[in-house]
Every structure is written in C-alpha cells, then in structure tokens.
C-alpha cells in the first residue's frame, strides 16, 4: 500500500498513454483484418474473407513457409551458439581475444541492418554460395545469436556462484556442475532467447532482402513489396496471423519455463 502511494497521477497517466500508444495500432490492425469490405477503412461487417484470400495466395504461403523454416533453423542454431558464447563470457574469465569476442557479440545488437546485410551478401558472393534458405539462415543466426547471448549472459550473471561451487563440493567436476545445476537454472533464459531469435528472424526484412536469392522470398519481403503498393486487406490478415503465431509461441514458452522452474523467475527480457 505504501508503494502505491508513490504513484503520482502523472505516473499513471504516462503509463496508460504509453501502453495505449503501443497497443492501439496493433489492435486496430487486428480488427480490420476481419473487415468484409475491400476498402480498408470502411467497416463492412465481420468476415474471414481476407484469411481465405491469404490461404489461396500460393506465393504468400510459400514465403510464409520459407520464413518459418528460416526462423526455426536460425533460432535453434543461434540458441546453441549464443548460449555457448554467454557461458564463455560470464564463466571464462579473461582469455585471449575476449575483448574482440564481446565486441563482435554486442555490436550486431545495434548495427544498422543495411550494413550487416550488405556485408554478409558480399561474403556470400565472394564465397560463390548459392543464395536462398541457407544464406538467410546463416545471416539470421549471426544477428540473433547475439540477442540470445545477451539474454543468457544476464541470467548467468545474476546466478549465485556458490551454487556451482556447492555442486563441485558435492562431487561434480566443472562440466557436470554446469550440466546438473547451471543449465537447469538458466533454462528459462535459454527458452526466452530462442523465442526472441525466432521472432527477430520472422520479422527481419532488410538482412533477408540482401542475403536471399531469386525465388526464395521470405514473408516480410513479400509483405514489404505489397505494402509499397498500398494497403491491402489481405496484408492485415497475414499480419494478424503472424501476431497470433508469435503470441502462441510466447504463451507456450512462458508456460514451459514456468513448469520447468519453480522459482517464479520471469523469462529474461531483452
């Protein structure tokens, strides 16, 4: 109760306005995806018409399938690599090249995507790699493993180091102590990292545009080319489906992490 008293009216108002600003546009988009009218802004009653159109749009479906495959593959590789990187950074103490390593991991978090995309493309061209699923997957892994590393590293950093010492004291060698104690405790962060990587990959337009080849467009690339031509109700439907998918992923993952740890530890944020 005392804590509530610290909230001023100004605090409440800025919170409410801020959240409304974040959510209203998405809400409007979802509502209009059920609009029967072709005119995006005229309400013609509820309808699933645009969802049907999407499912009959072969090119769109293909792009969506491509995006999903890339997202699952890159998120999974990125989770493994990112977790390894986080372990090395938070438990490796000083090692040769550590500064370069952490620099390479933190820079992509803010690096403009046009630079990352362009540089990866030039690498693939120089390597004469055929551009398509794998080049996009590699590009997305490179970007998203950094996010995974940050999420996992922040969890590792907040873990009581004496837990690992206790495991060693009770007969574990360092690797076993990590597997039996550390890993279960950072599992929620690893799951959160995977989710983050998955959605970032599903979302990315710029890097995918650079690194994909002809005939293998991802969903954002297709959406982007449609959006440039103007608003189409079908896009509303696709966007709603993507939002729904991400919501499901978030719910499943947070349930899973809640079940796996009794700590009530919320999934680590960005």
């Amino acid at each position, binding site marked *: 109760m005392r804590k509530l008293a610290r909230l001023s009216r100004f605090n409440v108002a800025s919170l409410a306005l801020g959240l409304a600003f974040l959510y209203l546009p998405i809400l409007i988009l979802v509502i209009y995806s059920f609009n029967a009218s072709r005119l995006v802004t005229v309400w013609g009653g509820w309808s699933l018409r645009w969802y049907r159109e999407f499912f009959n749009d072969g090119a769109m479906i293909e792009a969506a399938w491509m995006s999903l495959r890339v997202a699952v593959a890159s998120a999974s590789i990125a989770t493994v690599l990112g977790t390894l990187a986080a372990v090395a950074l938070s438990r490796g103490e000083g090692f040769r090249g550590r500064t370069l390593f952490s620099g390479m991991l933190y820079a992509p978090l803010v690096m403009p995507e046009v630079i990352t995309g*362009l540089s990866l493309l030039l690498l693939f061209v120089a390597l004469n790699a055929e551009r398509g699923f794998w080049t996009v997957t590699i590009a997305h892994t*490179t970007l998203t493993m950094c996010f995974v590393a940050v999420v996992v590293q922040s969890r590792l950093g907040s873990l009581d180091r004496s837990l690992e010492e206790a495991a060693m004291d009770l007969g574990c060698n360092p690797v076993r102590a990590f597997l039996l104690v550390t890993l279960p405790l950072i599992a929620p962060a690893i799951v959160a990292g995977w989710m983050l990587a998955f959605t970032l990959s599903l979302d990315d337009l710029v890097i995918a545009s650079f690194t994909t080849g002809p005939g293998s467009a991802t969903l954002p690339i297709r959406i982007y080319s449609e959006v440039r031509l103007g608003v189409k109700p079908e896009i509303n439907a696709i966007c709603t489906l993507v939002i729904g998918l991400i919501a499901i992923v978030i719910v499943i993952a947070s349930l899973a992490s809640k079940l796996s740890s009794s700590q009530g530890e919320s999934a680590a944020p960005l």
Partner: protein
Amino acid sequence: MSARRIFARPARFAAIAPYLWMALFFLVPFGFVLKISLSQTAIAQPPYEPVFDLTAGWAAIKAAFGALSIDNFKLLVSDDLYVFAYVRSLTVAITATAILLVIGYPIAYGMARLPTRWQAVAMVLVIVPFWTSFLIRIYAWINILQHDGLLNKILLALHLVSQPVVWLSTDSAMYLGIVYSYLPFMILPLYATLAKMEPALEEAAADLGAPPGAVFWLVTFPLSLPGVGAGVLLCFIPIVGEFVIPDLLAGSNSLMIGQTLWLEFFTNKDWPVASAAAIILLVVLLAPLLLYERVQRRQLEER
C-alpha cells in the same frame, strides 16, 4: 587457481564455436565491404571489378590491387545527395532519440513506481509489442495514417479539420513510426536503472527539504544516467542506419543514408558505391558503437 578459474577452463572451450562463427560471418565480411568499396562498377556478375581471382596468379592480383581506387569515397563526399543523406540521417536520429527520451522516461518512471507485482506485468506489456513484427507495426500505422484512414476519419468527425490531412509521406509520420518502433528500446534500460534505485534515496532527499522537482533533478535523474546512456545509444545507432521506416512513412524527396545505400545496391546495382556508403556510415557510428559496447559489457559483466 581459484574456483572461478576451475570453471573458466572448460568455459573457454565454449567460446570456440561462436567465436569462429562471428569472425567468419561478422568480422570477415567487413573486409569484403572495404575491398569492394574501393572497386569499380561493372556490368557483370558480380557487378564490380577488379575481381580477385586467386587462381590467376600473383601478377594478376597485383594488377587488381593497382586497380583499387578511392573514387567512390570522393564521389560520396563531393555529391550533395550523399552528404545531405548523412546529415539528414544524423538529424533524424538525434531528433527521434530526443523525442524517445522525453516520452520514454515518464513511462519507465511510472513502471518503476508500480507495486512490484505490477512491475512485472508492465514490463511484459512493454516487451510484447517488441516481439511482434516490426514491419507489421509500421504497416499498422499506414492503415491509420492513410488518406481515408482512421485518424482522418476521427478528425473529420470531430470537426477538427475540414478536409483530410496528408499524414503519410511526411516527416511527422516517419518520426511517429520511429518513436513507436523504438520506444521499448528506450523504456527497458531506463526502467532497469530506475527500478534498481533505492526508494529511500528519494525519500531522504525529500526529508532533507527538497521539493519534488528538485528531488527528481538532483537525485533521480543523475542516478538514472547509465540507463539514459544505454537507451540513447540503443536507439540512436540503429536509427541512423534505418531503412524501413523512412522508406514506408517519409516522403521520397529527401533520403536517409540507409535508403541511399539500398537504392544504390538494389536499384542502381552499384555495389561499390553502396559499400563505400556503408563504410562511411560505419565510421560515423564507430564512436557510439564503441561506447555502446563498453556500456553493454559493464552492464553484463560487472556484477
């Protein structure tokens, strides 16, 4: 040897795979960008020359080296189009970051003052939009801002305007889009430092006679500066190179550098100039990037 070092030996092995990956797919590519930025455009595949062909022998490589030039950089710094693009990128980024700070701070402050249980909820509420697609969120605004969109309809219905206002393809729309997309990046680091702050500090300041405004400016704000720094960098750097938001929401008469790069690459197929533009962008961002790396490392590793 200490406990930490017992753990460190196997932990270092974990670095090998991600290290090699990042070296190959993040570091090495910059070398290619640099090299191609010094090359000439050609109507060929790949569309630049000289092409280094290691099989052609030493003389050919030497000749190829001789053909490298800094013409692209000369072009970029002499042509107003590019200079304006850089200036505009920096202006937009500075303005947008300032707006983000002004909007984001009160929200983060409000979150930090919620009862603990509600803080977690508010945090999730701020993060969730970040998880939904960036492109979709921009698209949602196009829905609202277009000529016969919701915003104009509401304004007309309220008789605030007599005819529809042009929102799309304006700088206002672009700023709106940028603020909307980057708001969580500003709020989260701010919230993290504000929530960690001892409430007794503000109470002590008030107890010592500071009125609420003074409490904020003398105690709260100075202590939140690390969060402000992180939030500002987290927004500023990517906004400078932003492509999607200006492309979809701003007018086409003045471009940001990300758009110019995209245009050179995809439309003009001028890879060398696009690469040179990327190199200059990187140089411009080098100082904030290094600063950000330090902030990030301190935050994650000094506990």
